[in-house]
């Protein structure tokens, strides 16, 4: 029997012609250039922390009234009419900062900070430059109450800011690096004190420093707020050194680091930690296994003692708990039931990175398309498991947006689509007129009840529309196209019932199959829309159940009429029928 060497070499028997054709020194040198540029720029990840936008739809200008409450301040549209600012973009006054890309943005509770960023003037609009971008080190704060900007201290020369930013106890913490004399960098956590207007750096206390210069990409630490503490965690455990690195907790009160309990989960990449209803949750994709997100949460075992409990409880992940603080409570990780309803469950390929937000006790996965779900941590011990979110459908992203969601109290925005968090409904937010066409030139953050968009040297704010129940009205539904069936109309009662308002039933047949639809009208601010539901097989005759089908939002016409023309092509997913194509036209108007 040939020895193992012979077997292996025989399995990869590459002839000289193949090898010559494969070896491309020019390509090697080009890659070397990119590696060098990437090492020096330390820009990695910053794009992921901001939201990006493209072309504008709603032309809005701020009126001259200096009113800090956006709900009272009127905006003037292109045609000169005044309108409620909710649901619209308004440009902020000019600030002191020059044109820049990817500044760090953070809301302190009273001001929105815009810090640093990069000089991308040598790049094309929105281009992902492959060379090192010069850093800006100035910063400014915007007070929405006075609509005024002021200059603040920027990060000093010795601190290069990264992308993750959290605000804890009024202090702003940013992932950062300190350039070293040997062209290497030392990861640190930067802190900005808004009251003292001062920057400082806080070195990590790593049990196992990672990032040896072995040619592999460095794994930067990411930050998460956890109550009055800051968690600095490893973003990926792909490399052995990162697997051994401890996730850290910084307590501002003691100015010290402690170890976060090891998760004892299989090593993960694309790790995210975020606080959900006071609980720290870690989500990641196992390196060896299917591409599904595995969440676990940190549960308090004993609030009074620091004694380590060696035996994990049933339902917990393997491995025992660890002590977070020297005099603090004992925690252990508990794996949550269910994995993300994404690629594995839907059998579809994802179109980009996933993004996560927390709302109440919900951990919400907002993407990527076509999958999204919500995991209610309050459902333990009977759950929780993932619940589907409606597909954004044709809710327009209005251009190229970033893939990381930002969540306010009522609304989260992801890839240009907004979601009303209480009812988990998608809607469009449009984009401000004059926003740069290139998505890379934009950044976004919530400032209390408004979303602020930074684009080069301009900024806009957007406030959520009113989610109050709509007024009563009348709806008429007309089915056209390859449908035979009755057309019914009735008065709208406008009661809330589940996700959206279920209003009117439409019955039709497609072939031999009866199809029952519910059509719900939604009013969001001054936007009118319609949601369609199709009856599924799980309900009874007395209590039918309807599955979400389509969601369209359209502006109401001058006469108060809203029309939609919906092509129902995905009914097979919920109704078990396979129509060729069904067009449903709905018109309705509400009384003034």
């Amino acid at each position: 029997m040939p020895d193992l060497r012979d077997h292996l070499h025989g399995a990869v028997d590459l002839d000289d012609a193949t090898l010559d054709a494969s070896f491309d020194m020019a390509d090697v040198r080009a890659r070397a250039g990119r590696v060098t540029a990437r090492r020096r720029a330390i820009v990695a990840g910053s794009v992921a922390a901001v939201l990006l936008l493209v072309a504008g739809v709603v032309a809005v200008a701020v009126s001259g009234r200096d009113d800090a409450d956006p709900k009272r301040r009127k905006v003037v549209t292109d045609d000169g009419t005044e309108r409620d600012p909710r649901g619209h973009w308004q440009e902020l006054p000019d600030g002191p900062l020059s044109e820049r890309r990817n500044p760090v943005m953070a809301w302190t509770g009273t001001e929105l900070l815009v810090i640093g960023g990069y000089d991308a003037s040598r790049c094309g609009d929105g281009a992902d430059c492959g060379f090192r971008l010069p850093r800006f080190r100035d910063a400014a704060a915007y007070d929405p109450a006075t609509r005024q900007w002021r200059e603040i201290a920027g990060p000093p020369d010795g601190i290069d800011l990264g992308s993750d930013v959290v605000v804890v106890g009024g202090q702003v913490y940013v992932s950062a690096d300190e350039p070293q004399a040997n062209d290497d960098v030392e990861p640190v956590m930067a802190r900005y004190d808004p009251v003292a207007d001062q920057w400082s750096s806080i070195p990590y206390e790593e049990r196992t420093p990672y990032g040896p210069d072995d040619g592999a990409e460095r794994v930067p630490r990411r930050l998460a707020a956890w109550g009055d503490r800051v968690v600095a965690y490893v973003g990926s455990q792909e490399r052995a050194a990162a697997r051994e690195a401890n996730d850290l907790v910084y307590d501002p009160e003691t100015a010290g680091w402690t170890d976060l309990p090891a998760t004892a989960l299989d090593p993960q990449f694309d790790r995210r930690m975020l606080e959900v209803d006071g609980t720290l949750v870690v989500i990641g994709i196992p390196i060896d296994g299917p591409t599904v997100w595995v969440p676990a949460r940190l549960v308090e075992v004993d609030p009074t003692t620091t004694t380590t409990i060696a035996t994990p409880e049933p339902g917990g992940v393997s491995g025992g708990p660890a002590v977070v603080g020297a005099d603090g409570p004992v925690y252990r990780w508990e794996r949550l039931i269910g994995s993300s309803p994404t690629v594995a469950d839907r059998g579809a390929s994802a179109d980009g990175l996933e993004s996560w937000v927390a709302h109440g006790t919900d951990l919400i996965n907002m993407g990527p398309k076509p999958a999204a779900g919500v995991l209610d941590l309050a459902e333990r011990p009977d759950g929780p498991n993932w619940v589907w979110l409606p597909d954004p459908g044709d809710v327009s992203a209005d251009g190229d947006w970033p893939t990381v969601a930002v969540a306010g109290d009522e609304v989260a925005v992801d890839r240009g689509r907004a979601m009303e968090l209480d009812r988990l409904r998608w809607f469009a937010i449009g984009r401000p007129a004059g926003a740069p066409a290139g998505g890379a030139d934009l950044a976004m953050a919530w400032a209390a009840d408004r979303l602020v968009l930074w684009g080069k040297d301009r900024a806009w704010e957007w406030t959520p529309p009113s989610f109050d129940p709509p007024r009563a009205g009348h709806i008429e539904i007309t089915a056209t196209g390859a449908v035979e069936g009755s057309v019914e109309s009735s008065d709208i009662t406008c009661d809330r019932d589940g996700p959206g308002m279920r209003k009117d039933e439409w019955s039709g047949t497609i072939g031999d199959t009866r199809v029952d639809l519910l059509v719900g009208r939604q009013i969001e601010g001054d936007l009118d829309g319609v949601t369609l539901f199709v009856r599924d097989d799980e309900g009874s005759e007395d209590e039918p159940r309807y599955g979400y089908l389509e969601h369209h939002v359209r502006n109401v016409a001058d006469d108060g009429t809203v029309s939609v023309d919906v092509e129902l092509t995905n009914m097979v997913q919920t109704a078990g029928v396979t129509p060729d194509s069904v067009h449903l036209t709905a018109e309705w108007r509400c009384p003034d």
Partner: protein
Amino acid sequence: MDGEVTRAPDPEAFCRALHPRLLGSLTLYLSDWSTAEELTQETLGRVVARWGQVRSMEHPEAWTYRVAMNLATSSLRRRQAERRARTRLERGHTAITDDPTPDALAIRRAVAALPERQRQAVVLRYFCDLDTAGTAAAMGCSEGSVKTHLHRAIAALRDAGLTDEEGEADA
């Protein structure tokens, strides 16, 4: 150290000399010629980017294999490499393709069935011809760990009929 590439005076000579075994090892490790080709180029790019350090290393080829294995075991980077490899193929940059024989395919499958660290150890030790110390350096672990991985890997390959070796006999 076995399997050592003659110390090259310039990065191109070093890359050219190491390229065949690097490409072959990644092909074995990944069971995917296109991705292996992409990661080989990427690995060599990093060699050139750090040539000032690499040329002074005691075992530059072991370091290079370590970079390659780091890239290959990174799920994210592997997916990126797969996308780039597809793009290269679609654009016609790569005219050649890997066309293994049935026997070669069977061997690759047997290797692919090994756990990650065992696969690394086998490829580095028996295909790249690194000695135990070099394999340990490339894997970032101790020589004892290498021997353990090899022992288990060879047992699995023996069960698959690929070898009658007893273990790390020739280390």
